């Protein structure tokens, strides 16, 4: 298992690095860029929602802010198309992060269902602003981004591919670092029992807000990259509620709160969605299929792929080493003993 843990990611990284060299068709590399963008977004979203258990359905607002931030910077500063706009991505992320501070501060005063509803409401407010603040966003006329004229033909997607891959790896590294820090442990404690975490010295308010802002920063960068990739933005697409559904679904499918789960979910769902979109020529059938997928995931894999696999694996290991477990039971004293096998949550299990 340990070798798989190290070899697996390295193999995946090599495949991702080599992918556009092997599959050169622009259709395929185009889908690959979008897939990596969604993988980055889902990974960033997971830093907040996966670790703290607060399901935010308004991160499309930060995607939109990032999109507009780079469009405005490019037009105001007359940035030419090419590699230069990539350097503006962190600034676009920063813009999203700045916007996320007050929004997070307000929405994080609530919990659970209320929090979800508030994040959705905030998203729609931001979308309305994008339509109506015409002086800044040009309203529904949209904005153009510089076109990298030098990147013709099949090469066009390649810089986007590698820039997005770098962004994904950065987000993943941040997610990994947080997961292994005291801070991240505090976030996971908040997910399991917030009041108890508070009583154990976890500064829950600032911890949640910081995670919210970090995830908004990366989602803002994704929005900026997406805008530059498409070369133009419109309010309805920069602020798209389906974006939230997509990244949440990807994280749920792969495994909410796991490191690699959101990436796995994105690698499965985004190409599937693009495939259906191409097949059914944008008539919305893919949305129906999306909805069905959501139902199937909740029905069959409520915990997501990775946690289910991990559990199956530890159950196998437990049954192979059944003897030591029993020995442990014998000297550990009475009580319902944990086994490797999963136990359905039972409230108020009495000690015999």
């Amino acid at each position: 298992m340990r070798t798989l843990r190290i070899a697996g990611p390295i193999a995946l990284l090599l495949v991702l690095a080599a992918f556009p060299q092997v599959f050169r068709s622009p259709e395929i590399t185009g889908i690959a860029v979008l897939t990596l963008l969604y993988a980055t977004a889902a990974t960033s979203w997971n830093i907040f929602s996966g670790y703290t258990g607060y399901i935010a359905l308004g991160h499309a607002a930060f995607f939109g802010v990032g999109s507009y931030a780079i469009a405005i910077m490019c037009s105001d500063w007359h940035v030419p198309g090419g590699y230069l706009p990539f350097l503006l991505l962190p600034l676009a992320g920063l813009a999203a992060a700045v916007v996320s501070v007050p929004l997070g501060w307000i929405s994080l005063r609530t919990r659970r269902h209320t929090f979800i509803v508030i994040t959705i409401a905030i998203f729609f407010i931001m979308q309305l602003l994008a339509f109506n603040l015409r002086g800044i966003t040009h309203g529904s006329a949209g904005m153009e981004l510089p076109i990298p004229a030098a990147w013709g033909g099949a090469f066009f997607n390649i810089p986007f591919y590698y820039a997005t891959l770098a962004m994904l790896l950065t987000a993943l590294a941040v997610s990994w670092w947080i997961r292994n820090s005291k801070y991240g442990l505090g976030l996971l404690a908040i997910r399991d029992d917030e009041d108890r975490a508070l009583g154990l010295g976890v500064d829950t308010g600032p911890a949640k807000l910081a995670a919210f802002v970090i995830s908004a920063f990366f989602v803002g960068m994704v929005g900026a990259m997406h805008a530059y990739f498409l070369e133009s933005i419109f309010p309805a697409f920069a602020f798209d509620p389906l974006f939230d559904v997509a990244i949440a679904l990807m994280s749920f499918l792969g495994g909410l709160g796991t490191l690699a789960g959101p990436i796995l979910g994105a690698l499965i769902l985004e190409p599937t969605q693009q495939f259906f979109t191409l097949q059914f020529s944008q008539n919305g059938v893919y949305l129906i299929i999306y909805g069905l997928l959501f139902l199937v995931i909740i029905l069959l894999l409520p915990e997501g792929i990775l946690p289910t696999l991990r559990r199956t694996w530890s159950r196998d290991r437990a049954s192979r080493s059944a003897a030591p477990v029993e020995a442990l039971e014998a000297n550990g004293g009475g009580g319902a003993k944990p086994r490797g096998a999963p136990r359905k949550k039972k409230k108020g299990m009495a000690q015999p």
Partner: protein
Amino acid sequence: MKLLEVANVFKSFGGVRALDGCSIDVESGSITGLIGPNGSGKTTLFNVITGYETVDQGEIRFEGRSITDSPPDRVFRLGVARTFQLTRIFPRLTVLENMHVAAQREGLQALLARWSSSHEQQRALELLEFVGLIDLKDLPAGNLSYGQKKLLEFACILVADPKVILLDEPAGGVNPTRINELSKRIRSLNKSGVTFLVVEHNMEFVMGLCDRVMVMHRGVKIADGTPAQVRKNPDVLEAYLGA
């Protein structure tokens, strides 16, 4: 020396006066018991001390300083730890991870620190050994039995070396053998300098463990003394029997 003092605290929920001018104090180094019929305000008292509820009126002092209405995380960092009546652990974290939650860092340091420095790791393992959960350290805490969860919750707060520990019904739902073990552990910690305030319905457990017992009824303290004195106090008998 009085480690913890609650002075004339009032707390109402709607029309219910949960604390009605309650005053108690806990001597440093003692094991103090707090008993009383259901609804007499014991848990509310714990909640206002540890910052889970704000007081309507009155003052709470710890080591002579006011901690009235301080948030729970600050109260905990000052050295006042508690357990809950309905055991609260982090079910999806492993037993060992549970142990590390309490050893928090402030601000940026939390982000820079790995969740287990070697010193803290060793301390966590020692404590798991102390409560007898060392063999289960890598299991999700949600898989533990009820009694084991109680032990884990108890061990969790010890990581932070609290000065006073407030136990809310530590013996509730735990089998008699385990209760004896628990008494022993509380005594040995007390010898090393930890003060305890224990709410418990199990009279045998309280009377056997505590050097001093306070009785609450309808939000005020009605008796205070050694277990033997309290047992004979007519007000206490009346409160319990409703005569």
